């Protein structure tokens, strides 16, 4: 009864710049046959209400992500380095804003 659907349409991640001067931000994903089609679909799916002025599409397989199991060793070392924050340093009040 059914014909095969999207078997070979790869997945794309969509990034939208909401306005000039701001960064492209991840907003979702979609299936498309190629990059041009992915852009067209992203326009219809993610920017129907002027949500963007620019779109990037990236094949999902091209993204290398950090492993959630490594979260501890990747990110915890920063936790005890509070001297990397400006609030670590006490400056006399008369100096004013620094």
């Amino acid at each position: 009864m059914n014909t095969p659907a999207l078997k070979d349409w790869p997945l794309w991640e969509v990034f939208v710049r909401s306005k000039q001067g701001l960064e492209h931000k991840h907003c979702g994903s979609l299936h498309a046959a190629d990059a041009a089609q992915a852009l067209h679909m992203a326009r219809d799916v993610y920017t129907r209400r002027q949500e963007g002025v620019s779109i990037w599409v990236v094949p999902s397989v091209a993204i290398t992500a950090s492993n959630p199991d490594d979260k501890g060793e990747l990110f915890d070392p920063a936790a005890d380095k509070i001297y990397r924050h400006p609030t670590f340093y006490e400056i006399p009040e008369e100096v004013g804003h620094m």
Partner: protein
Amino acid sequence: MYTQAMDIPDDSGKKIAAVSSAPSDQEAAFEARIDADGRIEPQDWMPDAYRKTLVRQISQHAHSEIVGMLPEGNWISRAPSLKRKAILIAKVQDEGGHGLYLYSAAETLGTSRDQMLDALHSGKAKYSSIFNYPTLNWADVGVIGWLVDGAAIMNQVPLCRCSYGPYARAMVRVCKEESFHQRQGYEALLVMMKGTDEQRAMVQDAVNRYWWKCLAMFGPPDADSPHSAQGMRWGIKRISNDDLRQKFIDATVPQAKVLGVTLPDPELKWNEARGHYDYGQIDWAEFWNTVEGNGPCNKERLATRVKAHNDGQWVRDAAQAYARKQKERALKEAA
């Protein structure tokens, strides 16, 4: 739009296993994050039952958006003015978009678009029963916006805080767009109510036919909703079926008054002690009968959906053939 189906097992519906075979420290970390009202992301470890529940709920939700295009789509060519036609096209396009956000969210859990579409097209997967009733006249389109989308918003707003990140993010997007759906429906009805007696009668008739079906959209009473407690525990569901239903009724009664229609429930009246409206009995036998596939439009909706999918096959094939050709050409030029 939304599905009541978070509690409705698919035909294959195997009972969700309470015990998971996973090591207990992962499970403990998961439970701790849930307890702290944290979010779960696709790569995080999660119990199989949590994953299965989400796949079922999100895919049913997506199917509801897609099938939900059909009853209103019927009226695009018959909208009473160009303005109403443009509005209806935009709304139906939104529903299609909502389906796509949700399919994508479900895919992050390891299911594929093909699997989900096959489940819908073979009749294995459920979608919201509200779409298995016919849209007989233009007032139905307004009532769907006001009441069906209104009920959907009640259901969907708490889902923006769902513990599963991709689902919650999709719902934020959906909710932003849904408000337009409800308001355009209510406004279309206001216009009809300012018209002739015949037009007012059409609105009342549509409300009479849809009111009880909308109350049923929130799903079975809490007492008969076995999956609910686990869904609440996992932060997938935030507010119970009965509480959402009550919220919807309390919000809708004053809107009906402004519109000038009667809600078809003689038992509907304000209860000072409870601070809520009391309401009559929902016909659950009729609800389940429709869920089981015997509603007035189940067969027609599914057939229309399958036909649309099959008729679009050549487009998908052509896009794929074009992409392949382009790739081959690029390789040849590079060589």
